[in-house]
């Protein structure tokens, strides 16, 4: 079974604000439209469940086959972890939906004006990023958009069971390209795992190595976000 993750770098308006405490102070109450519940906690991350009220529309048909709509109140949820890495806070969202507007609106209303979040994107990922923490990391899938001529771009997808050596790929030599997605197969002490990283920021993890791969990705987060910040500056 695979799990999708997304990370967001978050900033709070004041240094003395503790997001963990703020979330604990907003549990699900009667009449409230959202709430947080603590699920798990480690020294590195605290995991919460965010619940929010949603309405589901039921369609009924009359005897004349005329539709009538009925709204049912229901709840939705998403799990998130607060990850602290070198004085920067990140949110790790597990299996995020199409958009996280309800969660971000809730955080903004709890924290107040000055709360900001920046989605982490992965535009430069290589097998070397994983090789330090696992015995073997093979690039088995690779999607790029490259400029191959004047006014000519190519969308290319590569796949290999044995791993792709980027340096040996003559096809990409001298080509300016942007990585859209990359799939790595990793092994560590007999355990196997697979990580698919999309440039947009969604990471899909599968296999027994998932916790270790999360740790390896999160080690890279401060440098990834600082790089994008420095480039924008």
């Amino acid at each position, binding site marked *: 079974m695979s799990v999708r993750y997304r990370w967001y770098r978050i900033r709070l308006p004041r240094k003395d604000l503790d997001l963990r405490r703020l979330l604990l102070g907003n549990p699900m109450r009667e009449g409230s439209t959202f709430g947080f519940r603590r699920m798990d906690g480690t020294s590195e991350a605290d995991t919460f469940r965010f619940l929010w009220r949603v309405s589901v*529309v039921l369609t009924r048909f009359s005897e004349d086959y005329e539709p009538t709509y009925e709204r049912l109140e229901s709840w939705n949820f998403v799990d998130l972890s607060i990850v602290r890495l070198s004085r920067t806070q990140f949110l790790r969202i597990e299996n995020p939906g199409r958009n996280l507007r309800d969660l971000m609106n809730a955080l903004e*209303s709890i924290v107040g004006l000055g709360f900001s979040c*920046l989605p982490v994107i992965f535009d430069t990922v290589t097998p070397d990023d994983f090789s330090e923490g696992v015995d073997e990391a093979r690039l088995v899938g690779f999607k790029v958009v490259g400029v191959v001529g004047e006014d000519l771009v190519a969308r290319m997808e590569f796949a290999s069971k044995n791993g792709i050596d980027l340096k040996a790929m003559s096809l990409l030599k001298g080509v300016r390209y942007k990585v859209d997605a990359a799939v790595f197969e990793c092994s560590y002490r007999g355990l196997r795992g697979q990580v698919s990283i999309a440039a947009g920021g969604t990471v899909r993890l599968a296999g027994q190595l998932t916790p270790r791969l999360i740790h390896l990705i999160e080690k890279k987060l401060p440098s990834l976000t600082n790089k994008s910040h420095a480039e924008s500056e």
Partner: protein
Amino acid sequence: MKKRSQGPSLYFASDKNIFDALNQRKVDSATVTKLFEDRNIIVSPKTPREELARYFARLNHDFEDHQSIAARLGVAARRERITSMEVVGISDADALVLAIQNIKKGREEEGDVIQITREGNNFALTFQYTTIDYGRNEFSQVQTRDGIVELLESGSGYTIRCTQNDYVLSVRDILLASVEKAAAQPLTKTVVSLFDVPDAKLRSQFFDRLMNDLPDYKRLDVIAAYVYKPKPEGDKNLDEAEDNEPDTHVEKVTMKGVGVTRSEVFNQLLKDEQYYITKVVWTSSKVLSAGAIYEIEATFEDPKDCTGFSFILSGVFPVEGGKPTSRKRAPQSSEIDEISRAIDAHSRHVMSVIKLEAKK
């Protein structure tokens, strides 16, 4: 009332004006064909427009011809923002009636159309007036516009809600001056303004609370934010040579997108650069309702002093099949009224809270 510096209307169009107008895309072929038909001339659809325009421009033209061309080239009046004022001290509705009648007489003498409706002690004055913009082409210089001044009895006095433009605001001021003259004591007028709150953070807080804490509504998204930082004023005591103007200064930044207020670029401008919010566009829906989404815009007309607060319900995403659609429609008057009441009351409340905080 502001005096017009130019003539009241356009009575004559030259052959060049007609030629230019008929060559514009806004004037469709059916209109041109009709103009010729009125002169018993049949034109082929294959005849080039320029040729038709050249021929028609040489003929005599009457008022009706001008009207049909102007109707095509006219400017569709956009809905304008709403502003409000709380007035305490109007004790007598009869004095108000008298002042309204004086306004009606004066405006009608100027050629405007004014309609007055009364519901109990609430009044609504609807104006139809013309404005002239000499910057536009000859056929769209005269624009007919609508304006409204509503006087709604509130607990302590009257809430005067009106369209935010020079014409309507001047009518409101004349009306109040007339009532004040008849009243035993001066009126107390309160408008939403942050003129005496110079703190950038508090000025931004005003909009943040306006959007987030609007009673009975939940904020869904902030889709645009305009931030402002006034250019530092020079020291008048210094000589011109000593008083250097800043070489680089960005006065206004516009940000559009989704979740604008939680973006890093927005927060950086507010926190590190001392910019403050002067205009926001956001979407809200009612907490207890079928789920229609309202797009609301609120702004200070003068960003430097934060005066001239106004707002507009710019659109509604209605519910279809139980869900809000992505097709925006113009709001209905009941929706405008409901949102206006909510924003009127809430903006005044937030302003008084912010002013109290500023004094601390």
